[in-house]
């Protein structure tokens, strides 16, 4: 088959991956989606979750905490705030992220903007679901 597209995963501090992929599964803000070559051009924000990359050489998974993805017909770039290869994620990583999310949730609760509180609560729930999903 070998129908591939260029996949780039970059974080502000460095570029994490740049390879030819056959399909990439994204945790989109409105739901998971899979991008394959010749996907319609799309820009979507990401929620915390697992990014799964299928390449001819094998698949790899990354934990992302948010950011956005830009899909072109011939390529896909994911700009993540924080991205860690799943194999390197440990419980302590996750605990750190959860406590961060909890702190921002608590901070939001003191404010009066309900949407921010909801967002923070969702973030927290996403983070916790992630832990169960990865069975850590």
């Amino acid at each position, binding site marked *: 088959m070998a129908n591939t597209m260029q996949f*780039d995963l970059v974080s502000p501090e460095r570029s994490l991956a740049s390879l030819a992929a056959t399909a990439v599964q994204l945790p989109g803000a409105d739901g998971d989606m899979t991008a394959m070559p010749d996907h319609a051009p799309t820009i979507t924000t990401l929620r915390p979750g697992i990014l799964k990359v299928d390449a001819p050489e094998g698949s790899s998974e990354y934990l992302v905490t948010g950011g956005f993805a830009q899909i072109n017909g011939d390529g896909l770039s994911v700009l993540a705030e924080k991205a860690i290869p799943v194999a390197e994620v440990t419980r302590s990583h996750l605990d750190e992220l959860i406590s961060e999310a909890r702190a921002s949730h608590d901070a939001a609760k003191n404010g009066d903007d309900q949407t921010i509180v909801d967002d923070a609560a969702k973030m927290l729930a996403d983070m916790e679901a992630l832990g169960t999903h990865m069975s850590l």
Partner: protein
Amino acid sequence: MPSLKDLKNRIESVKSTRKITKAMQMVAAAKLRRAQESAEASRPYAERFNAVMAGLASSVGGSDSAPKLLRGTGSDDVHLLVVMTAERGLCGGFNANIAKLARAKAEELRGKGKTVKILTVGKKGRDALKRDFSDLFVGHIDLSEVKRIGYVNAQDIAKDILSRFDGDEFDVATIFYAKFQNVVTQIPTAQQVIPASFEETEGDESGAVFDYEPSEEAILAELLPKGVATAIFSALLENGASEQGARMSAMDNATRNAGEMIDKLTIQFNRSRQAVITNELIEIISGAEAL
């Protein structure tokens, strides 16, 4: 005329100065390489980010529903100047140049009757501006404990700025930093971050019309605060590379000057030693002749 002992001491002291400046130069060279690497590593993110933002901003920008970070508050009476400098000196004109640019901007804005507020990042800029503008300082962010600049540091600064913006403390924010050109040239730069402005990239290569998920506005609202952090992060990294570059060339000059000074002092030392010897000989000879 200094005595021989004085000269000797002087030479020794200049020699140890030279050793120190030489060491500093080499440390700066090593750090510069690292700083340049991290500046380069951050570039893909910033470029893509700006490309997406430019597209989004041009399609949403005109409407009234555009987020405040993009549209501005509608006035430009209160300016926040974020002056980013180094924590340490001995790096040539690096800190002074940034401070000079910020000072000129502050004077200009004050001349126009605007209110100016200054947020300093890095101790040296604060020291340089303290004399003239200490009443305008609204805050200071200390990075002296930070060994290696990370995105987290930029996020903290951005958070500080954004919370001030949400509190209606200012209308326009400008960051000051030095862009790294090469080891001898660093260009002090002022860049407006709020309201955000994005350089149009030359012709979107695909010309594709994107689907946005969720809506364009929602994405823009989420990304604009990140844009501030990204701009600050790039500026911090540029600053880091500039600082080390400036320090390297300053220390190179200092090392060379010390070398010249040592040569000059050594000649002076040898001459006066010879004069002492000659004097003694004359005394001995004339003493012998007198007998």
